[in-house]
C-alpha cells in the first residue's frame, strides 16, 4: 500500500505537498501526467514539422517567386517568429481543432480525419473483439493444460504473431480467400452497388446500415470486414492469449484455488469463475494496449485492403509530401494512444479495489 501511494505521488510531481483527499489527488496527478505527455507529443510533431527539408513557403509560392513575396508569405505563416512563439501558436491551433489544410484534398485536416477515423475504428474494434473472444479462452486452456498440446498451440500462435509481417499476411489472405476460393469480397468497405446508399450517421458502416435498416448493405459491409478484421485480429489474439495464459498460471498457483478445489467446487467453476474472475482486471489493461497497437497494424492492413481509414489517409498524404495531413494524423494517433492508456489506467483503478 505504501508502495502504491509512493508511486502515485511520484507520478503526480508536486501534488504531494497539497493535502487533498486521496481519490482527487490521484485523479489530478493522472490528469497532469496526461497533459504533460500530450504537450510532449505536440512538441515532437512540431519538431518533425520544422526539421523537414521541404520549405513550406516555397511549397506555396514556388521557387521562382520574388523575394518580397517569399517574405510576405513567411510572415503570414508566422515562420518569422521565434520558435517558441511558433510552438505556442501551434498548440493553440491544435487545441482549437485547427490542424491546417491538407494540400492533397484541400480540406481542413481535421475534417479529413473525422471522415476517415470511423473506418479505422470499425476495423480495430471488430479485430479486437475477434482477439478477445478467441484469445481469452485459448489462453485459459493453455494455462490449464500447461505443457500439453493446447499450450504448444498457443505458443506457436504467439510466435507466428510476432514473426509474420501483417501486410504480407493480408496479401496472402486476399490471394487465398478472395482470388483462389472466392469466399470473401475484394478490397474496400462496400461493393460499388451499395456505394452512397447509406446515409452517414456515425461513419461506422455496420451501425449506419443497421440504423437505416439496409440489411443487404449491412451484410455486404460485414463480408468486406471479415478478412481484414480477422487478419488484424490474429495479432491481438496472439498477444491476448499469451498474456491470459501467464495471468491464469499465476492465479492457478494461488492457495484460494486449492481451497476452492478442496471444498468441492467443480473444476470448470474453479477455472472459469474463480481464477478467470481475478484475471479480468489486469486483462483489461492488456486488451486496451492491444487495441491501441491495432492502430499501428491497421496502417499497413488498410493499405493492403484499400480500407479508407486513418492509416490509408496517413500513407497517402505521406507519399504526396502533404506534411499538414501527416502531422495531423500522427498527432491524432498519438492522442488516441494516450487516451486509451489513460482509460485503461482508470478502468484498472475502478475494477481493482486494491488500487483505489
Amino acid at each position, binding site marked *: 500500500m505504501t508502495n502504491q501511494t509512493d508511486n502515485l505521488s511520484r507520478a503526480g510531481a508536486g501534488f504531494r505537498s497539497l493535502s487533498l483527499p486521496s481519490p482527487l489527488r490521484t485523479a489530478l496527478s493522472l490528469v497532469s501526467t496526461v497533459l504533460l*505527455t500530450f504537450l510532449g507529443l505536440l512538441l515532437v510533431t512540431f519538431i518533425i514539422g520544422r526539421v523537414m527539408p521541404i520549405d513550406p513557403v516555397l511549397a506555396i509560392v514556388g521557387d521562382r517567386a520574388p523575394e518580397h513575396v517569399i517574405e510576405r508569405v513567411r510572415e503570414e505563416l508566422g515562420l518569422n517568429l521565434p520558435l517558441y512563439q511558433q510552438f505556442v501558436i501551434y498548440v493553440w491551433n491544435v487545441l482549437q481543432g485547427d490542424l491546417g489544410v491538407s494540400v492533397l484534398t484541400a480540406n481542413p485536416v481535421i475534417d479529413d480525419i473525422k471522415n476517415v477515423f470511423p473506418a479505422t475504428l470499425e476495423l480495430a474494434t471488430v479485430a479486437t473483439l475477434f482477439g478477445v473472444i478467441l484469445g481469452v479462452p485459448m489462453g485459459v486452456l493453455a494455462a490449464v493444460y500447461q505443457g500439453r498440446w493446447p499450450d504448444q498451440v498457443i505458443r506457436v500462435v504467439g510466435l507466428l504473431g510476432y514473426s*509474420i509481417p501483417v501486410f504480407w499476411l493480408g496479401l496472402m489472405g486476399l490471394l487465398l480467400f478472395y482470388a483462389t476460393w472466392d469466399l470473401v469480397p475484394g478490397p474496400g468497405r462496400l461493393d460499388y452497388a451499395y456505394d452512397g446508399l447509406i446515409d452517414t450517421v456515425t461513419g461506422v458502416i455496420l451501425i449506419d446500415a443497421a440504423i437505416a435498416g439496409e440489411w443487404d448493405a449491412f451484410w455486404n459491409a460485414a463480408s468486406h470486414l471479415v478478412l481484414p478484421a480477422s487478419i488484424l485480429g490474429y495479432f491481438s489474439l496472439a498477444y491476448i492469449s499469451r498474456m491470459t495464459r501467464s495471468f491464469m498460471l499465476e492465479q492457478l498457483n494461488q492457495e484460494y484455488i486449492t481451497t476452492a478445489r478442496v471444498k468441492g467446487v467443480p473444476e470448470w467453476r474453479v477455472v472459469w469463475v474463480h481464477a478467470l474472475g481475478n484475471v479480468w482486471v489486469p486483462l483489461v489493461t492488456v486488451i486496451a494496449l492491444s487495441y*491501441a497497437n491495432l492502430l499501428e497494424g491497421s496502417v499497413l492492413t488498410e493499405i493492403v485492403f484499400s480500407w479508407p481509414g486513418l492509416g490509408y489517409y496517413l500513407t497517402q498524404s505521406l507519399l504526396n509530401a502533404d506534411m499538414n495531413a501527416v502531422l495531423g494524423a500522427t498527432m491524432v494517433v*498519438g492522442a488516441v494512444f494516450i487516451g486509451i492508456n489513460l482509460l485503461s489506467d482508470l478502468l484498472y483503478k475502478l475494477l481493482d479495489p486494491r488500487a483505489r
Partner: protein
Amino acid sequence: MSSRSEDFSAGWRAWLLSSSPASRRQARLGRLYLGWLAFRGNHLAMLGLGVVLGLVILAIFAPVIAPYDPNAQVLADRLQFFSAQHWFGTDDLGRDIFSRIVHGSRLTLYIVILVAIIAAPIGLAVGTTAGYLGGWVDKVLMRITDIFLAFPKLVLALALVSALGPGIENAIIAIAVTSWPPYARIARAETLTIRNSDFISAVRLQGAGRLRIIWSHIVPLCTSSLIVRVTLDMAGIILIAAGLGFLGLGAQPPLPEWGAMISAGRKVLLTHWWVATVPGIAIFVVSLGFNLLGDGLRDVLDPKSGGQG
C-alpha cells in the same frame, strides 16, 4: 588419436566446470559455458541460432551464393515460375528472385545491426542515468521516455521518414529513434534494484564519481537483460523495416529489400503469386529465428523473468 582429443576436451570441460576457479577469467568462462549448456538443451533456441547464423553466412557470402546479379534484368524471362534455372522464379523485371533474396539478407542485417548499435546505448545511457541519479533528472528523462512511448512505433517512424525523406539510412534513424524507450525503461528498473546494494556503497566510499559508478559498475550489470530485450526486438525491427520498405519509404529501388520486393510483387499478386510470397517467407523465417533465439537467451541470461510469460 581420437581418445587423445577426447581427453583434451574432457580436460577443458573439467577446467570450465571447476567449482573452485583459480582466476577471474576461468570463473567468467565457466559461467558462459554453463549458459551455453543450458542454451544447447533448448532445441527451439538452437533452431533460432541456426537461422540467425544462416542469415549472417548468407549475407557475408551473398555474391558467391547468389547465382545471378540481383539487379540484372532479363525482360524475356520475366515472371517465370520456380525452375532449375530460377529456384524462386523471376519478378516483373526478369530478375532472379533467389539472388535478390540472398542479397536482401545484407540489407536486413545492416538495418538490424545499425538500429541496435544506435538505440541500445541511448536507452542504456538514459535509463542508468535516470535510475542512479533519481530526483528531477529521473523525472525529466522518464517523462521524455513516456512521450516517445506514447506513439505507436510505426506511425512515429512514418512521420520521421516523411520529414527526413525516404531511404534506408533515414529509415534506420527513424526506427532507432522509436526503439530506445523500452531499453531506457529496462535499464532504469535494473539500476533501481542495484543502486542501493552494498557493493555500490563500497565503491562510492572509495571515492568513485557518479559517472564511474554508472559506467563501470551499473552498466555491465544491465547489459544481459538489455541483450535479451534487443534480441527479442530484432524481429520487430525487421518487421517495421519491411513495413517501411513495403510503403516505399525504406530502401529504394533497385535495392533488393524484402519489404519492397513484396510491394513490387503485390502488383502481380493475383496472376503470379510467388513474387510477393517468397520475400514474405524470408522475412517470416528470419523474424522467427530472432524470436526463438531471444526466447532462449532470456531463459539462460534472465531466468527470473521465467518461461514464456
